């Protein structure tokens, strides 16, 4: 029974932000940027990533709560990406959603019975109040709120966080959907009850034959819950495959970093060498070119897509470690970093003394905290300026490695078709 329930192909979800008052072109955030995967019937598929990785947007796009920009979502004989809100509505009894914050995802003005029973009325599954209430009470019972009838007339504010999440689950499952998108279903619950809610979700999966798309930032619960999973970073999947493979032997540095960083209740682990990536997930408005993870990657090397802004960042990072005098001297050498020129894959400095500057830069380059210097092809003089030119750094394409799909140059340089590369390929490279 490994037939595919949903097949996502090259899905993009972009948001316009900051458009002007007169409807001019604003910037575009590529929240989901070319994602392809499939979910098999009866499995739990995990989407794991930090905030800003696009995992929630991907889940909402699949449910048609956010319009897809391009790509396909194949479900039954339909392409969900092309349906409008009205066409989507009848399908919603087959596609449910469990939300992160149970305190906010229940209507405070509706009783539990009304809230849980509402999907039945919307889809015309029941026609009268008594029948709706009976079904709602049954579902509440099944979700561990028993006797269900006693909960029908309570309001969400009378319930604890765990009970509310059970109500949310009951509401999502009362129409007996095939696929349920669970967006961080236990993240806002207390530790001591998380397990109970997860257990409930997994029991219901067995009983009702559900398929889950489980969205989480918590790899620990992801490992326990998911059959297969995908690690997302800045709108793309960097590694996906069987959960066990990914946990036992992560192949992407980002996955490795995530696994290293999870704080586990085991004091003996405290002095391990974490090799944490530097910095934070960058602004999705202006993602790094080449591999999107390369500025933070502890294992990044030559072809990862080094670009001008990485050199500026590396210089700034260097200055957090040197003493005040060195900083003043070196800042005098480079001039104000806000005035350097970004020209595609070239970086233009206008130093006062270009000879001293290029000598210094050549000296200091290999010592910089990141491997950015490995991506520098030449340092040339151009009039009074010094221009640093970066070599070809392709955005990594997907490749099969150790039983899963991974997008990383460490396993061989593969350029992603239509990727956001740095520079131009030269015949000699690769």
């Amino acid at each position, binding site marked *: 029974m490994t037939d595919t329930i949903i097949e996502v192909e090259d899905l993009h979800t972009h948001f316009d932000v900051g458009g002007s008052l007169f409807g001019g072109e604003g910037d575009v955030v590529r929240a989901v940027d070319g994602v392809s995967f499939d979910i098999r019937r009866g499995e739990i598929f995990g989407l794991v990533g930090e905030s800003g990785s696009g995992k929630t947007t991907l889940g909402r796009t699949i*449910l048609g*709560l956010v319009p897809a920009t391009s790509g396909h979502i194949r479900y039954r004989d339909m392409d969900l990406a092309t349906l409008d809100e009205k066409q989507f*509505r*009848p399908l*919603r*009894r087959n596609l*449910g*959603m469990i*939300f*992160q*914050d149970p305190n*906010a*995802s*229940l*209507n*405070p*003005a*509706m*009783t539990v*019975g009304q809230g849980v029973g*509402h*999907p039945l009325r*919307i*889809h015309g599954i029941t026609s009268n*109040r*008594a029948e709706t*209430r*009976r079904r709602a009470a049954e579902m509440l019972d099944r979700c561990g709120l028993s006797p269900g*009838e006693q909960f*029908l*007339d*309570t*309001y969400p504010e009378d319930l604890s966080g765990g009970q509310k999440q059970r109500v*949310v689950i009951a*509401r*999502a499952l009362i*129409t007996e959907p095939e696929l349920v998108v669970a967006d961080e279903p236990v993240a806002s619950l207390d530790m001591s009850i998380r397990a109970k809610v997860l257990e409930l979700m997994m029991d219901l999966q067995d009983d009702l034959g559900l398929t889950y798309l489980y969205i989480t930032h918590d790899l620990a619960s992801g490992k326990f819950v998911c059959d297969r999973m995908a690690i997302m970073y800045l709108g793309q999947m960097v590694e996906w495959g069987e959960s066990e493979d990914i946990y036992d032997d992560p192949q992407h540095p980002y996955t490795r970093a995530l696994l290293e960083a999870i704080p586990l209740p085991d004091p003996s682990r405290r002095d391990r060498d974490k090799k944490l990536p530097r910095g934070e997930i960058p602004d999705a408005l202006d993602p790094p070119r080449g591999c999107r993870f390369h500025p933070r990657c502890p294992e990044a090397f030559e072809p990862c897509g080094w670009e001008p802004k990485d050199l500026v960042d590396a210089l700034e990072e260097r200055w957090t470690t040197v003493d005040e005098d060195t900083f003043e001297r070196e800042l005098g050498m480079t001039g104000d970093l806000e005035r350097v020129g970004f020209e595609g894959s070239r970086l233009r400095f206008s130093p006062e003394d270009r000879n001293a500057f290029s000598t210094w830069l050549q000296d200091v380059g290999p010592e910089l905290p990141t491997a950015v210097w490995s991506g520098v092809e030449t340092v040339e003089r151009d009039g009074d300026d010094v221009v640093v030119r970066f070599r070809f750094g392709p955005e990594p394409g997907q490749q099969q490695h150790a039983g899963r799909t991974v997008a990383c140059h460490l396993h061989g340089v593969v350029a992603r078709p239509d990727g956001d590369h740095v520079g131009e390929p030269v015949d000699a490279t690769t």
Partner: protein
Amino acid sequence: MTPTAPNISRWASLRRRMEHALRPWRRANPMARRLVVVGLLITGFFGFLAVFPNAVAPYAEDQYRFVEGTTDDPLTVDADCAEVECPQIPRRIEPTEGHPFGTTADRFDVFSRVIHGARVAFAIVLLSTALAMGIGVPLGLFSGYRGGKLDRALVTLMDAVYVIPGLLLAIIVAFVLQRYFDPGLASAAVAVGVVYIPQYYRVIRNHTLSVKEEPFVEAARSIGAKPRTVITRYVFFNVVQSVPVIFTLNAADAVLTLAGLGFLGYGVPFPEAEWGLDVSRALSDVVSGFWWTAFFPGVAIMLLVTGLTLVGEGLNDIINPLLRVRGYKGKVPDRDEPAPEADATQDEHVTVGSRRETR
């Protein structure tokens, strides 16, 4: 699931819902509750006068003759009745036993006019706020939920209306209405009501904008609810809670606007009893020393406005949960030595009084 279950649970669920609706009141801080109670008492008093004016007022609003056996049956005013049989009420007499608030130049009993004035005040306030609510609330909901160009256009329009001072706008509307309709309760109500549409619209629209972003609205979409269902069942009940506050505060304001209109002669026509109108007609009396003709209607306006404002402010405290905790003080149990801390916090504990303390 016994056959009788639905019936029983229907009652039980009704009770649960009532309890739920009353919960903010029970949790409210005692000061806010006191405000509301005092305000309601004042407003209720005028409400009683408005509904049963004849139970209290000795004369009709436009009665200027004593009728035979007057005090027993003041309503049978006979305009054709002869001077001898039905003597006229004297003009401008000071407050006396027969006329506790005195009489006016038109031979009207001020006491009765003040009481009958409550009827007009209530009728106009209710009609005008109903009009404002009926237009402002749905428009705000729709515009806030839909957003887009229509929303922008409506916001601009409402802001434009809002910029005009309330009384001025009411006068303009009243003036226009006078050209087409007979002046009366209805047109005065419309004139006053138009002023308040933007207020309801703005509050409801802004509230809708924030509720729209709540996850439960997306949850409603995710279970397949149509936009209309989302608005009526998910958004509406979460934004109406601000309506009672605007309602009471607007009602207070409407009393003033109505009085203003009446004062300027654009309100209900004479000889209908209306406080603003009475104050206006009493203007010339004041300079001659006949203070009572203007004083008592003025006091009535002030009292009713105060009552409504108290209710509004109290409700605001009760409905806005951030203000709700105000007024309650916690107290850590004293350790073995009780004396020293007691004095520092003593006077702040006035409000604690009736609640049970746990040791």
